[in-house]
């Protein structure tokens, strides 16, 4: 049978269920008899006799195998490969064996590699791979007629369906005990509304429609956090849960066994809900899918193929998890085991070495204010390219085999392996190459339907590249080591400092530099000659050996000060327009995820007005038009003409709801939601509107979900905030255009000339 691998997951013990989208247009369910292996090692292989005897009922077979135990090993060791009877028990079995000796006596590997991913690695196949499957004596035989490195690949025809539900709310917020109002299904151009009959009829109507349409993808908004759990609970309430089946496997849809998880990432508390899987289909909750949200269907397909992760998993996974899967695949190819509990520690350093080593990439604080004639140069995928070209990986930095290597980490002098390509560079080569190619294809496809496809594919690869660096220093990464992370930063600083010197020698002055991007202009405000930036770029590329792109020359660009301290510059807070009219806006309210929609819209309207100007002086002369925008918007706020949804602030809870004690607008919204029976978790996002800023308790803000006809927003507070938002982008052009001046103009209903 020929077709495309669509989905796979463990079935009963010793079974792998595979769904194939056949060339005949039908979807086929296949079952392979296969079990994953875990690996067990000890200092002496004979020490494993007891644990293997105790756990023998959990294994189909055990045998000796030769593998690399640690990423730094230069020779294989003898370990025990134990084929599991039931893949779902891998962690319990491993924990039982580990507990039979002191920590480190029994070392376990490949325990937490997801079973379906192990199947993909072992059979050299990947999701949406075109292949031929035959039933052999030992199970399914796979013949691959696709290439994961291909830029152009054929995909099967796949269909999607969107499901939404309107709840007959009894209170202000929908609850699991509320009845279903209507179920709305969208498929192609068809909209099906299920509103007739009682709740059971509606639920079974949904089951019937899903079965009739037989979609490959089911798209929901908040399907993991609300929609599907709500429908499951309604089915339970009516005693029809055994008939509530939406997947292709016809299994009963159940609530996840555990709640979601709150976790800490890059200084923020985030919340990840447990996902609800539809076996044989792919359920995408558009509000909790990073890959789909950032890169659409094409990005999701590319990610699943490249990282060999089933689409349901890659739609929910962090990019780091996807990257881990790619590394696991490369590890399995070179016979390297994946440690269950990594123990690779950093190389010991003395105080001075630590001080010199433990630093990030180069950052040069921006020179604040409005600048003209600034050019921007960006290194292309700098960090992944450093790892690739300098062979940076956990096992290659300070390797034992090449102490006199000529590949040395700048400033620190550490040797880097010259004999063998590291695991990380091996894994990222395909990311760097494919992204570069997709960017080229995207440019050549401008104006065609392929543009979106290539753009989505390169977008997801960009995230993979970014994550590669972070994972070198991430404490949960299986193949990370901080020394490799440090080496990349040291190379970055050298490359950027060299670039600065080259630019200065060409008569340029550095205005701002952050990690892989530089903003330059000619000394003393001189104009650049045509082609001068391109000439500079060529010399930098030649001398550093890293590719660089010239992003364009700005008509003007503004680097903004800190909001807390106007004398202090901040990184990544700027806006400007280049000579092609393209805007670049970073870090201002219009780009922040917590800003109300209307404020984003209005601030962008002002920036666009300014962007029509070709010079700083011309932009300054447009400030009064911009003030007109502010006055118009302030009046519409005052007249309560702005919909609440456009005034909602979005924020993630930084702690558990019970820990909110200080009376802030955010805590008011949290307490209001809790009083309506909503269970919140640290890291979860909430939307709220300020209703009485100077009031007390929960009156201060109303959650958007609880907004009704009697609710009213605090127009005065919103006008104050609007004045600040507008002043943030106008003050650099005219220091007198402060928030207080804008407010006084609103009060007097007239534009006061600003000299």
């Amino acid at each position: 049978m020929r077709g495309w691998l669509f989905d796979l997951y463990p079935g009963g013990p010793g079974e792998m269920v595979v769904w194939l989208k056949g060339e005949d247009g039908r979807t086929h369910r296949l079952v392979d008899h296969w079990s994953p292996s875990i690996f067990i090692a000890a200092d002496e292989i004979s020490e494993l006799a007891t644990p293997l005897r105790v756990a023998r009922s959990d294994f189909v077979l055990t045998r000796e195998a030769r593998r690399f135990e640690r990423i730094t090993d230069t020779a294989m060791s003898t370990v025990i490969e134990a084929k599991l009877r039931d893949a779902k028990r891998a962690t319990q079995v491993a924990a039982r064996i580990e507990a039979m000796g002191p920590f480190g006596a029994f070392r376990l590997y490949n325990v937490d590699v997801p079973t379906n991913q192990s199947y993909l690695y072992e059979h050299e196949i990947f999701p949406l791979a075109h292949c031929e499957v035959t039933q052999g004596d030992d199970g399914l035989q796979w013949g691959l007629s696709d290439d994961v490195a291909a830029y152009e690949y054929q995909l099967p025809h796949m269909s999607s369906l969107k499901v939404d539900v309107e709840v007959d709310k009894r209170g202000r917020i929908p609850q699991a005990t509320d009845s279903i109002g209507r179920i709305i299904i969208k498929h192609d151009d068809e909209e099906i509304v299920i509103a007739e009959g009682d709740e059971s009829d509606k639920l079974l109507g949904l089951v019937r429609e899903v079965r009739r349409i037989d979609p490959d993808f089911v798209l929901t908004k908040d399907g993991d956090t609300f929609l599907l759990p709500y429908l499951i609970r309604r089915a339970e309430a009516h005693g029809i849960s055994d008939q509530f089946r939406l997947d292709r496997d016809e299994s009963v849809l159940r609530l996840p066994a555990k709640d979601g998880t709150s976790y800490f990432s890059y200084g923020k508390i985030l919340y990840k809900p447990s996902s609800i899987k539809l076996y044989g289909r792919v359920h995408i909750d558009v509000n909790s899918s990073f890959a789909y949200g950032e890169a659409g269907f094409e990005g999701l397909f590319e990610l699943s193929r490249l990282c060999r992760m089933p689409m349901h998993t890659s739609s929910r996974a962090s990019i780091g998890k996807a990257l881990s899967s790619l590394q696991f695949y490369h590890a399995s190819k070179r016979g390297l085991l994946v440690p269950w509990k990594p123990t690779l520690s950093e190389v010991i350093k003395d105080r001075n070495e630590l001080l010199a080593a433990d630093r990030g990439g180069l950052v040069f604080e921006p020179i604040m204010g409005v600048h003209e004639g600034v050019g921007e140069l960006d290194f292309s995928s700098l960090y992944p390219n450093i790892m690739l070209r300098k062979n940076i990986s956990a096992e290659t930095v300070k390797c034992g085999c090449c102490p006199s290597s000529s590949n040395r980490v700048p400033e620190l002098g550490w040797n880097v392996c010259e004999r063998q390509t590291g695991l990380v560079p091996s894994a990222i080569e395909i990311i760097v190459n494919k992204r570069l190619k997709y960017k080229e294809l995207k440019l050549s496809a401008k104006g065609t339907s392929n543009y979106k496809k290539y753009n989505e594919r390169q977008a997801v690869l960009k995230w993979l590249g970014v994550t590669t660096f972070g994972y070198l220093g991430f404490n949960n990464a299986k193949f990370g080591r901080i020394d490799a992370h440090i080496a990349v930063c040291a190379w970055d600083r050298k490359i950027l400092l060299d670039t600065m010197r080259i630019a200065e020698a060409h008569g340029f002055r550095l205005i701002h530099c952050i990690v892989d991007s530089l903003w330059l202009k000619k000394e003393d405000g001189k104009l650049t000659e045509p082609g001068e930036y391109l000439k500079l770029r060529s010399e930098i590329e030649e001398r550093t050996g890293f590719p660089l792109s010239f992003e364009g020359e700005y008509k003007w660009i503004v680097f903004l000060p800190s909001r807390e301290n106007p004398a202090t510059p901040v990184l990544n807070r700027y806006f400007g327009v280049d000579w092609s009219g393209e805007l670049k806006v970073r870090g201002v309210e219009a780009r922040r995820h917590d800003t109300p929609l209307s404020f984003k819209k209005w601030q962008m309207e002002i920036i666009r007005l300014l962007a029509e100007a070709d010079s700083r002086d011309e932009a300054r002369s447009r400030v009064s038009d911009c003030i007109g925008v502010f006055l118009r918007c302030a009046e519409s706020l005052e007249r309560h003409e702005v919909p609440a949804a456009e005034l909602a602030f979005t924020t993630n809870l930084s702690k558990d709801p019970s820990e909110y004690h200080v009376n802030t607008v955010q805590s008011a919204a949290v307490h209001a939601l809790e009083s309506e029976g909503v269970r919140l978790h640290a890291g979860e996002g909430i939307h709220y509107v300020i209703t009485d800023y100077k009031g007390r308790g929960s009156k201060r803000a109303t959650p958007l979900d609880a907004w009704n006809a009697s609710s009213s927003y605090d127009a005065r507070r919103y006008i104050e905030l609007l004045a600040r938002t507008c002043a943030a982008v106008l003050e650099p052009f005219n220091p007198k255009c402060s928030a207080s001046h804008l407010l006084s103009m609103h009060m007097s209903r007239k534009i006061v000339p600003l000299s």
Partner: protein
Amino acid sequence: MGRTIPSFRIAEAQEMAEWKAFRTALSKHDKAVFDDMLGIARLYLSASSEATRPSRFEGMGMAIIFHHYRMLARSLLRVSELRQEGVGK
């Protein structure tokens, strides 16, 4: 894993917090001057970070001294230019 040594941005904020008692003893006017002076250090964070000195105050102190010297040198140059233009004769 992760970083052991804070970035100079964080280290500098910690150092500033440790001078709180000094600041408390200043007059209202001097507090503002003191804040301005410490703020100068933020203009040279990259250079202070590159210096990798064991004491964070060294980087901050050098940044403040350098900035003042730079301003002084510019002022002297301007005075000399004004003299050449005959201003103040």
